[in-house]
């Protein structure tokens, strides 16, 4: 595996392999000195053309805990503002000698296109509405570890609620959850379901009330407020009536069912309940797992392959 561009690039064996490595990383992260020399001498650039706090910090933390050198590229302060093309930007960064680039871009397909312009490994940290494969992996890690079934999600039902059409998280997660055997249900306003949703192998339900008591995991997507303006959803109140998680609905979640959200949360929109008041909330656990899984991805792509290095202590 040279790059991580899309969940579809990964076989089930590769997905499970990364999640197993993430267990090692979780152990490292539990140490008093959470650092190993696994990627010493490697340079990883985080190249974010679109704003992101948690994903960028998560990747940079993961890289540093593996002792890689980290270079941060911020589009807002870059030569892109002077008219430099995407290709020139990537070729320039590449010429500085980076082993991997972690890319976030507002346009679908950009990480794939970049592989033509650099020899560095490309890791997709979210491209347009297309893919966010490390989110899919960390969510699969969260669910499998929650239910104690490391290799499978069969007999589990996961509902994803919200703007499916414009969600890269939905595309990665539905693919990974399904291939691990889960039954995936989507709940969204009709205009926020993608064309040909039936070909995705998911069940479509109309309201959150239909699913909230039945599922093992309730995955709430961020609802972007600008969608309301473009008449995709008539009114915020109507969206909330059909799709938001209220305290009443949260109380109807099944015993042992968990609540997930990729962040950042739009409080008062998709979550009207305070997640701190939902016993099954794993929203912060997802963030913690994100570092474990991104360490596993970086190690899988850039490491020597031998896991013995993960047993060693890091430099302080």
């Amino acid at each position: 595996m040279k790059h991580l561009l899309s969940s579809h690039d990964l076989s089930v064996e590769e997905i499970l392999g990364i999640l197993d490595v993430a267990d090692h990383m979780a152990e490292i992260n539990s140490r008093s000195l959470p650092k190993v020399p696994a990627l010493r001498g490697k340079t990883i650039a985080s190249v974010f053309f679109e704003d992101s706090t948690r994903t960028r910090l998560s990747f940079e933390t993961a890289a540093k805990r593996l002792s890689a050198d980290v270079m941060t590229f911020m589009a807002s302060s870059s030569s892109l503002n002077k008219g430099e093309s995407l290709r020139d930007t990537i070729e320039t960064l590449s010429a500085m000698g980076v082993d991997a680039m972690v890319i976030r871009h507002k346009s679908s397909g950009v990480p794939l296109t970049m592989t033509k312009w650099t020899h560095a490994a490309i890791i997709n940290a979210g491209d347009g509405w297309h893919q966010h494969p490390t989110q899919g992996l960390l969510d699969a890690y969260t669910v499998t570890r929650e239910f104690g079934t490391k290799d499978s999600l069969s007999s589990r039902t996961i509902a994803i609620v919200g703007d499916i059409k414009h969600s890269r998280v939905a595309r990665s997660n539905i693919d990974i959850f399904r291939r691990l055997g889960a039954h995936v249900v989507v709940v969204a306003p009709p205009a926020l379901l993608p064309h040909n949703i039936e070909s995705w192998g998911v069940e479509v339900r109309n309201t959150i009330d239909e699913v909230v008591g039945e599922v093992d995991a309730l995955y709430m997507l961020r609802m972007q407020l600008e969608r309301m303006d473009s008449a995709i959803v008539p009114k915020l109140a109507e969206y909330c009536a059909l799709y938001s998680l209220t305290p009443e609905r949260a109380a109807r979640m099944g015993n042992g069912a968990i609540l997930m959200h990729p962040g950042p949360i739009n409080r008062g929109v998709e979550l009207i309940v305070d997640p701190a008041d939902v016993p099954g909330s794993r929203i912060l656990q997802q963030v913690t797992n994100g570092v474990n899984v991104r360490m596993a991805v970086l190690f899988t792509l850039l490491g020597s392959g031998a896991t013995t290095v993960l047993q060693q202590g890091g430099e302080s």
Partner: protein
Amino acid sequence: MSQSIVIRGATVVNPDAIAVADVLIIDGVIAGVGGSLQADIELDGTGCYLSSGFVDLHTHLREPGKEEAETIESGSRAAALGGYTAVVAMPNTDPAQDNVETVRFVREQGIVAGLCEVVPSGCITIGRLGKQLVPYARLVEEGVTLFTDDGTGVQDAQLMQRALMLGKQLGITMAQHCEVASLTTGAVMHDGECCSSMGVPGWPSIAEEQMVRRDIGLVRATGAKMHFLHLSTAGSVDLVRAAKAEGLPITAEVTPHHLALQDELLRGFDPVFKVNPPLRTAADIEALKSGIADGTIDAVATDHAPHAGHTKEQPLDAAPPGMLGLETALGVLNTAVSVSPQQIASLMSWAPARIAEVSQRHGRPIAVGEPANIAVWDTSTVWTVSRDHLSSKSRNTPFHGMDLRGRVRHTIFNGELVVRDGKALK
């Protein structure tokens, strides 16, 4: 007095007959069709068909305004290499072809290049902005017969109706780019399964079909002539078939790429496959082919749309739509669709010459006394397209690396040999 030319051994393609004959050209006119003819220049036509030169209803020459992508000269050369003796220059130049000066400039640059006839089209609305009609009569005096806002459809139904009323009065043809803009905001590719999994905004078939449907109604109401540009969906073919059965004065074209390429090609996010209207599905391709077979589709037109390299090296959603077409049109049509030599001549020469109203000079029979605008081509040579060996200034061909069957060997424009053995002579 120019040198006389004889083409030997080609199969001459006429609407009523197809037979091997030598063709002699003297002073820009066909001077003999038969045997034992002598001339200054001898051309081998063995294994080839000889027809009237091709006429492209849909060429973006980019000059004035985007000379880094194409010029009238480089585009004319690409056209000649593709067997074209006339091309209709689309009006989305900068400035747009909505005024006498620009139209004259385009025509004259074509004459200077001297490789084919460059026939300027005019805009339907000022600046192609869809707000205000162009004063057509002044442009008609300049010889413009085809008007279009290509690149965008005329959204306002009342404005379009008034354009057609004037069109009817002046005897000109309105050519529509069928796209309801409110249904294609930000659209990148066909709104199907592929688009859905790739996570890009879709261009649904209905956005084309709704404008075809509206305009058929407007033609019925006004009696004006209308030409539909680059139809791409099965539904559009059905609508046009029914409109023609009704006897409405409607014509339609398809592009070679819509006959040969599917939306699946965009899976790699390569902007070279981005075009407007977008590549569609296998079912649409089959419907376009059936439209060719039963005559619903009159013409094959390239929508040749050069783009400078750096503009296509962008994310798929930011890159401009469009692909090269002039030099590959014959090969793509012949490879993708089962067509006879007479169908090829009809789709690429006779019908488009009538639609563009250049049939005094182009798309005419191969007979003594006719103007010598001629293409000599075969349907058997297999060649591999290379973007590095095309004469366009741009390289955005979607056919790079593909094998095509059928190639243009010689092109004669106004009695002058401009392409010989697949090489441009100027």
